[in-house]
């Protein structure tokens, strides 16, 4: 069975390829196939099975392998006619890793996973590339023939239709769900041959899909619009459709869909040198922040953040340049600030730095601090601080740094 774990927590699930025969239970169909086959053979007729050369045929052969003994079909030859018949049967034996657990354990013995190898060895099953050549000389009736094409429009099956169509002893059993058997038979009418329709389609039916969706729980489901209503031939069957809350997004052939999900984040890699230079600070319990100034490199849709390269040191010149002649090169914007400056603590800090004469005035939004000796004003409010300082750059920078100590940088 399908491994569903990778589908879990998907944002969008596109659902398609469900069974075309929701009312036909595959196991039941297999049973019908076998019983019809046995009945025809016992009555002395031939059985024609139009099918693809790989796929369900392996299961049919396996089922018949078990059935042959009990139904005393031991002497009836089974023919598989297709240019790739040999390859198909051989190839089915070598991909055990794709088969179910039981078949895998057979391979460890070692034994071929499919029993048709034994059928070939015991000459019960014979394969031929076409009806010409060896087949025409070794052909015995009554027999069972597996051949293509299931549409009955081309392939060796046409020959058999002509050969056996007139006798009501023979039966044609349809197992492929792709083609409507009535349409397929139309050009051969009137047909005395019996027709049995038991399509075998092991794909998911609506009941299984509902169960799958309940387990996987995707955020959005997208499906062909045919699944949102019961099939045309059984419009009263309200269980043969997808009923979901919220309803799935339908699409039809050649329609363009915008899938409803937005990405909010992309993966970017911080190079180790930059990662080492980051300084996180905890602003809330369990949450830390760090200011990042970096250079973004994007190549082949892969993004990395690298450290900002340091500007090369200015070459020493013979002429003595005046300091501060060069305007500052803005390497990185200053971080945003957050927090508040607590009055008492700030006053204490000022004191420690030798600023003792401070007159504190209360205002509607906060406080104004008059630094008497330095002739400077500091306005402290909940969401802002304003420093008014003339002509004293060193003092201004000191005050600036003292304020910044109380604030968070983002």
């Amino acid at each position: 069975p399908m491994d569903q774990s990778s589908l879990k927590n998907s944002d969008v699930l596109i659902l398609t390829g469900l069974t075309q025969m929701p009312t036909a239970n595959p196991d039941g169909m297999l049973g019908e196939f076998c019983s019809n086959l046995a009945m025809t053979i016992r009555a002395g007729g031939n059985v024609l099975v139009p099918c693809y050369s790989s796929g369900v045929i392996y299961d049919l052969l396996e089922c018949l392998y078990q059935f042959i003994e009990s139904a005393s079909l031991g002497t009836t030859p089974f023919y598989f006619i297709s240019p790739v018949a040999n390859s198909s049967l051989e190839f089915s034996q070598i991909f055990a890793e794709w088969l179910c657990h039981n078949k895998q354990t057979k391979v460890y013995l070692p034994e071929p996973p499919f029993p048709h190898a034994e059928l070939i060895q015991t000459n019960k099953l014979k394969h031929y590339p076409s009806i010409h050549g060896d087949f025409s000389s070794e052909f015995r009736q009554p027999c069972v023939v597996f051949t293509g094409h299931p549409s009955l429009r081309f392939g060796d099956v046409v020959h058999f239709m002509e050969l056996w169509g007139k006798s009501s002893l023979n039966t044609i059993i349809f197992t492929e769900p792709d083609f409507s058997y009535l349409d397929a038979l139309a050009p051969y009418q009137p047909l005395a041959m019996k027709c049995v329709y038991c399509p075998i389609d092991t794909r998911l039916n609506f009941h299984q899909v509902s169960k799958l969706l309940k387990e996987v729980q995707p955020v959005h489901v997208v499906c062909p619009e045919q699944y949102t209503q019961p099939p045309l031939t059984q419009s009263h069957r309200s269980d043969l459709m997808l009923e979901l809350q919220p309803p799935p997004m339908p699409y039809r052939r050649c329609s363009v869909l915008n899938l409803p999900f937005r990405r909010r984040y992309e993966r970017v890699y911080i190079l180790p040198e930059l990662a080492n230079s980051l300084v996180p600070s905890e602003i809330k319990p369990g949450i830390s922040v760090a200011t990042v100034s970096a250079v973004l490199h994007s190549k082949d849709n892969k993004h990395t953040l690298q450290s900002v390269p340091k500007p090369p040191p200015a070459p020493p010149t013979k002429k003595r340049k005046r300091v501060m002649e060069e305007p500052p090169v803005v390497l990185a914007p200053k971080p945003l600030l957050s927090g508040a400056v607590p009055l008492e603590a700030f006053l204490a800090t000022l004191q420690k730095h030798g600023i003792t004469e401070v007159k504190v005035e209360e205002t509607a939004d906060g406080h104004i601090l008059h630094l008497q000796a330095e002739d400077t004003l500091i306005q402290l409010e909940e969401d802002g601080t304003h420093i008014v300082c003339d002509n004293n750059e060193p003092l201004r920078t000191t005050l600036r740094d003292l304020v910044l100590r109380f604030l968070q940088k983002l």
Partner: protein
Amino acid sequence: MPEIKVTPLGAGQDVGRSCILVSIGGKNIMLDCGMHMGYNDDRRFPDFSYITQNGRLTDFLDCVIISHFHLDHCGALPYMSEMVGYDGPIYMTHPTKAICPILLEDFRKITVDKKGETNFFTSQMIKDCMKKVIPLNLHQTVQVDDELEIKAYYAGHVLGAAMVHIKVGSESVVYTGDYNMTPDRHLGAAWIDKCRPDILISESTYATTIRDSKRCRERDFLKKVHETIERGGKVLIPVFALGRAQELCILLETFWERMNLKAPIYFSTGLTEKANHYYKLFITWTNQKIRKTFVQRNMFEFKHIKAFDRSYADNPGPMVVFATPGMLHAGQSLQIFKKWAGNEKNMVIMPGYCVQGTIGHKILNGQRKLEMEGRATLDVKLQVEYMSFSAHADAKGIMQLIRMAEPRNMLLVHGEAVKMEFLKGKIEQEFSIDCHMPANGETVTVTTNPSVPVDISLNLLKREMALGGPLPDPKKPRTMHGTLIMKENSLKLVSSEQALKELGLNEHQLRFTCRVQLQDPHSDPDTLHRIYTHLKSVLKGYTIQHLPDGTVMVESIVIKVSSSAEDTNTKVLLLSWSYQDEDLGSFLSTLLKKGLPSGLC
């Protein structure tokens, strides 16, 4: 700095009992669990007490990975899992899972039944051990748990041999097991993509040799066999049932066919028919030529090679016999050897590596008198030849693999110390990467320098990419600024504004106002204009505007001019800026304090 630790418990500067422990990202992995073929006592098993002194290993290991079915890589597995105790997952490829238990059972039979040992694992233990095995497919990434993932690559060497890529987070290790870089008659060559692991652990059996052309070796081999057969001698080729045997069978079969030879070739029974089946069912693991033609013709069904019976050994006349096991240390090949050793017309050809302590090793080193059980000595008169057919990579092949995978560090195991030393030097010289060759029990620690994966908000990313323009200028890189939020296990990089919002914080505005006095005899608006012109000439590259409301703006800094009350020639400039423009603001106040240059209009 995160580290990866590697400790060989076996195959460190040695061949045999391969067992390598890797600690990566908090996960512990055991690579291979082999048996040393040269010892008969406890030394044949790796020393698991390194992992824990007493008790089961389940809690200490996250998984065990077996590279292929040779006994020196899986021989101690049942012992470890059932007798020492391990219940976690064991990973190996499908063919390995199929063939391992057979070889283990065979080996157990010889050791217990024929040699009569007691403290050995039982058949039931082998079965219980294999129940814990999870099969791997080539190039399929398997999640062992949330953080540890492994992937198998084709290694050549024998059917089902794999190299394993182990990844936890951004750190990775590749273990090669035994591998071969040249395809042979039934297997392909090892291949790996440029996965750039932090460490590549490679075997170095033939570290110093560069093998000559395969055709020469094959021609040599066939010549020797042919000569011996021509003079009526018998050729004994000791092989393991699965591995080189198939290769040599194909070679001899084609030769016999071409030369229309009549002498019989035998293959010892037991594992033969089974081996054939395995090769058929796992044909996807053989080389391309065999895969293409297997439908029409099975390369492993031999017309000239028949099953051997013990009595045939006494038949007169020439014959070639493939007998197991490969190093002449026990079993049928040893029996046949004893029978034929006395005749100079006969020949024994060792097709591969022989571990020290085995009879194979002894006779290859020239020993011609051997001590058997019961004090009997055996005179070795038959010709002893060594043809290296074992599928290991030679020095050139190892370098080729390094070029393929581009690891950051190398670690050599499964070789002889002297040869590894030589190869280590070559690797360090050619690739400039560190190369280690630890002994058993010695731990190698490699510091990795991984990048940190972070989720960046799409808005921030798109904005930066748009501003950066299609071609970034390497001389003036555009700096991006953001805030990294670290919450539980997630790292998110967002713009500072978004960070404030997400964390529920308020922005705190810090502003500065500065008054600068200037001497300027012009009117206020003229002064302002002079300031504007002055700044424009100094601050090229900045946005400077002269606004109609009587202010000059530099970026977002505001400059106003007013006359002093006492003296109209003394102007007072008011500069106001926020913390975001701190650098520029500071510069401006110092600049303007110096006054305006006289040459301005």
